[in-house]
């Protein structure tokens, strides 16, 4: 789709101050940031080159240097030395993002700084737009998230205490965190675990404490976490819909016959699956492997026996 003159004007008004404050980028780099093509940026620059203030002598024109396409700079942006103010949705993206960050730290001092920044931004937002979006309780409170993200940025190591739900135990581990993301409101940290030399995933809400450690990471040999060598098949009633939504990352395929889902799972039939099946608030049938079916039943019977004695 070809751009309108207005699209180009909008982009140019931000491009000029951006280039004058961030000199030295190449045309393809600029295109990438402004979500357009290098050809378009070249065209923009040759057009901007002729724009300026009344008088239009070399003193009044924008002074742009793009002779070397690997090094673009603007020495005189004239009156366009600042970008446009934020649009409503841009402001909202930042303000809502900041309120999410408030749930990601337990540090009161940090919270205060984030809140101050938020109020500096929100005075420019119209009330109606904030009415259209709400992000209360957007994610599980994760007091260590920002601290862990800093550790990723600074490439440092941390000692964490972690509650494993699957093995139902708490342990201490030294980790070098690599990435942090939230799926369905739950935070996950991917980290190199120095304790067992492997990449592991930790749930943020199960980390009970974080302290800085000072290990160095030279020559760490890493074993990738194993791909599941076996898969499982289960049958769920209609209510199983929510299980499928919550675990779509391990579902290979599903077949719904109007009453039951037959589900193929890409996950090692082990402790996690046994407990998950045991915890479903309806009856589920294990089709394959058969030992998994008897294991779930056996555990249910054991638990039931406690109530009978």
């Amino acid at each position, binding site marked *: 789709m070809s751009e309108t*003159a*207005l699209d180009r*004007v909008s982009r*140019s*008004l931000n491009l000029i101050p*951006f280039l004058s*404050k*961030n000199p030295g980028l190449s045309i393809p780099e600029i295109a990438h940031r402004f979500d357009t093509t290098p050809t378009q940026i070249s065209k923009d620059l040759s057009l901007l080159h002729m*724009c300026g*203030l*009344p008088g239009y002598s070399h003193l009044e024109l924008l002074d742009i240097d793009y002779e070397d396409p690997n090094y673009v700079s603007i020495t005189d942006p*004239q*009156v*366009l030395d*600042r*970008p446009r*103010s*934020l649009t409503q*949705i841009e*402001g909202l*993206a*930042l303000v*809502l*993002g*900041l309120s999410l960050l408030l749930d*990601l730290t337990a540090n009161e001092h940090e919270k205060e*700084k984030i809140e101050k*920044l938020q109020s*500096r931004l929100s005075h420019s937002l119209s009330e109606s737009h904030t009415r*259209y*979006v*709400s*992000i209360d309780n*957007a994610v599980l409170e994760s007091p260590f998230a*920002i601290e862990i*993200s800093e550790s*990723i940025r600074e*490439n440092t190591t941390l000692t964490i205490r972690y*509650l494993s*739900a699957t093995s*139902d135990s708490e342990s201490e581990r030294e980790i070098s965190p690599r990435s*942090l*993301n*939230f*799926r369905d*409101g739950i*935070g996950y940290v991917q980290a190199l675990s120095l304790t067992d030399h492997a990449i592991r995933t930790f749930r943020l809400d199960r980390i009970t404490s974080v302290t800085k450690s000072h290990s160095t990471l030279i020559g760490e040999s890493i074993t990738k976490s194993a791909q599941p060598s076996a898969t499982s098949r289960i049958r769920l009633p209609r209510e199983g819909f929510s299980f499928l*939504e919550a675990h779509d990352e391990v579902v290979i395929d599903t077949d719904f016959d109007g009453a039951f889902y037959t589900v193929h799972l890409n996950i090692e039939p082990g402790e996690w699956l046994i407990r998950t099946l*045991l*915890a*479903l*608030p309806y009856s589920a049938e294990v089709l394959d492997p058969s030992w998994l079916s008897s294991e779930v*039943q056996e*555990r*249910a019977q*054991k*638990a*039931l026996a*406690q*109530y009978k004695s």
Partner: protein
Amino acid sequence: MTVSDQKTERLLNLTMALLATTRFMSKSEIFQSVAGYTGSTETKERMFERDKDDLREIGIVIDVGSFDPLFDDEVGYRIKNTEYALDLGELNASERSYLSLAAKLWRNQLFHSSGARALLKVAATDGSAFMDDFAGGVITLENETSHFESLWQAIADHSAIQFSYSNPDISRRNVNPYGLSLWHGIWYLVGHDLDKEGIRVFRLSRIIEEVVVAKKKYSFTIPENFSLKDHLIMLNDQLTITCIALIRVGRCNSLRVAGSVISVDAEWDRITFRQSTSNISELLWFGDDLILESPAELRDQLVSLLAKK
């Protein structure tokens, strides 16, 4: 030079001239000094009227006023820098990194591109573009859905929408969209369902295929007293009850964090904790490491579920 190029150039020159002037500029002054206005007076007038509308369409506020107090019959124009330009004040390094974290949270979501544009503008004020490139340690919210753009547009424009919804049976819905909410990691649409004649809450990931947005804008009004949160609270089971259970010593660690524990004997502890009435799965997870003592109804429910496993 194409017509579109000429228009782009003229609009930029006009913006710059109106930004540079401290007093109001009259039309004749503009025609005389701003490059790009050519032809008969009538042509220039038409051009200028259209240009003014165009700049306003991209959100630039053009001030209209009398440029000479003695002859107030001729109006003048200018753009106030305070309304035009982004002014966040000085940002220190930590504030800058909070903004960056906040904008980058929204991977693949409503605010993904607007957050990125906001950061570009911030970089255009302080030259921090390179910092963003190397700022590792981003926290991201992974959320499905490709419907954001069209939904947001429909909400902002108050246009009716139509979509197919899988719950899991597929039905066609006609809705006046009121707002969006990120609630416990999941995006919901709240709107007035025209066929069900009431406010309904839809999970975005269950909207299948394209959302059809009606062309007509402002076809409905959102009731004055409407609040997104009121409708989302219904989704959240706020009802929690106090439970007492025996838990095996050294086990049920994630439950221990949430309750108060006293020792019973060498094998068992007793825990008192709050539990949502609908979330029985959490208790089933612990198998025979947990014996629920009260409340009796929840205990009966647990026993009957275990018997069906």
